[in-house]
C-alpha cells in the first residue's frame, strides 16, 4: 500500500507500478469528461484539439461561472463546484479513450466493469476512486479552469483543469487485473444468501 505523487502526464511504466489499495495524489493537469463528451467523441466522430496522451480524466460536469477571460481565468470560466459522477455509465468508452486518445488514468466513483479492467491490463491504465458527493472538498484541489473544448456540450464540455494536490485517491482497479469492486462483489454474493436466510426468505 504505497503512496504515489504523479505529475501529469505519466508513462505506461509509471501506471503499471500502481496496485489496488495504493493511494495517488495527482499534480498539474486533469481533464474533465462525461457522457455527452464521450458520445460525441466516439459515436459521432468528433475530435479534440487537446492532447490527452498519458493524462488522467475525471468523470465530471462542473458548476462554473462565466467570467471575462484573464490570466487568472484563461478559459473564461471560474470554478464554482467540481465533483464526480458515477463512472459505470461510461464503461464502453474506456477502451477507445485509451486506444485513440492515449488516456492512462480514469478518476471516478462507483467503479467500472470487466471491459475497463481488460483495457487497463492490455494498454496500461488504472481507475482511481474518488469519494462521490464530496465536491466541495474536491473543488479546493482545483486551481483553475485552464481551457475548454467541445463547449457546445456545456456543462458536459471537455475541461482542462490545473490541479494541486488532487487526492489522495484510491487505486481501485489496476493494470494487473486487480479490482476492489470485483472483490467486494464476490464477498457480497457470498453474504447475500445468509442475509436472505436471516430475513426468512427461501433461496
Amino acid at each position, binding site marked *: 500500500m504505497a503512496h504515489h505523487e504523479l505529475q501529469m502526464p505519466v508513462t505506461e511504466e509509471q501506471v503499471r507500478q500502481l496496485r489496488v489499495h495504493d493511494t495517488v495524489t495527482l499534480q498539474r493537469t486533469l481533464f474533465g469528461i462525461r457522457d455527452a463528451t464521450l458520445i460525441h467523441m466516439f459515436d459521432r466522430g468528433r475530435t479534440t484539439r487537446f492532447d490527452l496522451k498519458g493524462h488522467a480524466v475525471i468523470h465530471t460536469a462542473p458548476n462554473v461561472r462565466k467570467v471575462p477571460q484573464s490570466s487568472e481565468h484563461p478559459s473564461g470560466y471560474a470554478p464554482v*463546484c467540481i465533483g464526480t459522477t458515477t463512472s459505470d455509465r461510461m464503461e464502453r468508452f474506456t477502451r477507445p479513450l485509451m486506444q485513440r486518445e492515449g488516456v492512462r488514468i480514469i478518476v471516478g466513483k462507483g467503479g467500472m466493469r470487466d471491459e475497463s479492467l481488460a483495457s487497463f491490463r492490455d494498454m496500461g491504465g488504472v481507475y482511481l476512486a474518488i*469519494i*462521490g*458527493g464530496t465536491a466541495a472538498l474536491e473543488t*479546493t484541489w482545483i486551481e483553475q479552469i485552464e481551457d475548454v473544448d467541445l463547449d457546445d456540450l456545456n456543462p458536459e464540455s471537455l475541461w482542462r483543469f490545473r490541479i494541486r494536490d488532487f487526492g489522495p485517491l484510491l487505486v481501485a482497479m489496476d493494470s494487473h487485473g486487480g479490482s476492489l469492486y470485483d472483490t*467486494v462483489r464476490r*464477498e457480497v454474493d457470498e453474504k447475500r444468501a445468509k442475509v436472505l436466510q*436471516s430475513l426468512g426468505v427461501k433461496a
Partner: protein
Amino acid sequence: MLNVQASAVEETAKELYIRALKILPPDIKQGFDRLTRDETGGIAKSVLATMVTNIAVAEQTDNLLCQDTGVPIYNVVVGRDVAIAPQDISAAIRRGCERATREHPLRSSVVHPLTRRNEHTSCGIEVPVIHFDFDDQLESLSIEMVPKGSGSENNSFLRMAIPAEGVQGIKRFVIDSVIAAGGKTCPPTIVGVGLGGTSDLCVALAKRAATRPLGSHCEDPDGAALEQELSAAVNQLGIGPQGLGGDATAFAVHIELAATHITMNPVAVNMQCHSARRARATFTPAGISYGF
C-alpha cells in the same frame, strides 16, 4: 387568512434550491455520526471521514456539497385559509428555480429526453417537479425542496410482484436492488421502498420514503417493523460506503405503503445518496422560516 405573494414564493423557491445544495439536514449529519461509530472496515472508515469533512468544507466555503444539482423537486403543502392560487405557486417556483440556476450560478442538469438540449435553467417540460398536497394547518404554506441526484435516481427499480410471492418476494427484491445498485448510488444511502398501490403510486411512495428524514418511521406498524428488519439486513451485505466494502451501506431502509389490488403485490425501490439534501420553508402569519 394568510396572504402569500407570488414574488415571495419565487424568492423562496430560489433560496431553497441553493440552501438544499449547501446545508445537509441535521438528521443526516447524525446519521453519519452513527455509521462512523459502528463502522469496522478500514477503507470504509476513511471514506466516511472524507464525506464528513466535505460537509464541513461546504459550510466553511459556502459551496455546494455535491456537483450534482439534480432534478429539482418541490413538495408544496397548502394548509387552510391560504390566499394564493396554486397556479401562481407553480409559476413562481419555476421562476425561482430558474433564477437560482442563473444567479448563483448552478449547473443546469436538466435536458430534453430526446434532443438532450439543455436550456441552462434547470427547467424543462414538467421540470421542476412540483407536488401539491393539503393539510389541516391554519394559515400555513410549506415548501420542501429536494435536488434529486442522478447517481441514486438511476438506480430505481419496480417489480409488479404477485400475491404468491408475499413478503418474502418484497424482501428479496429490496436486497437484490441494493446489491444491483452497489457503489453507483453513492452509498451510504437511504433506501426508499414503496409497497402497494398502482405501479405509478408505488414508485412515488418509494421516492417519498427515500427523502423522509432519518429517525422517522412508517406510520403503518407492519411497515415500521419491516423497515427495522431490512435496515439491519442491508448493512450485513458488505457493500459499504462508495461500494468499496464495509458495514455502512445504508443509513436506513424507509417504507411507505398504500393499499393495493387483490391480485397485486407491487414493490418499488428508490434511493437517496449520502448527500441526502433537502430544505424547507414555511409561510405563516409570522413570516417565512427556513429549516429542513
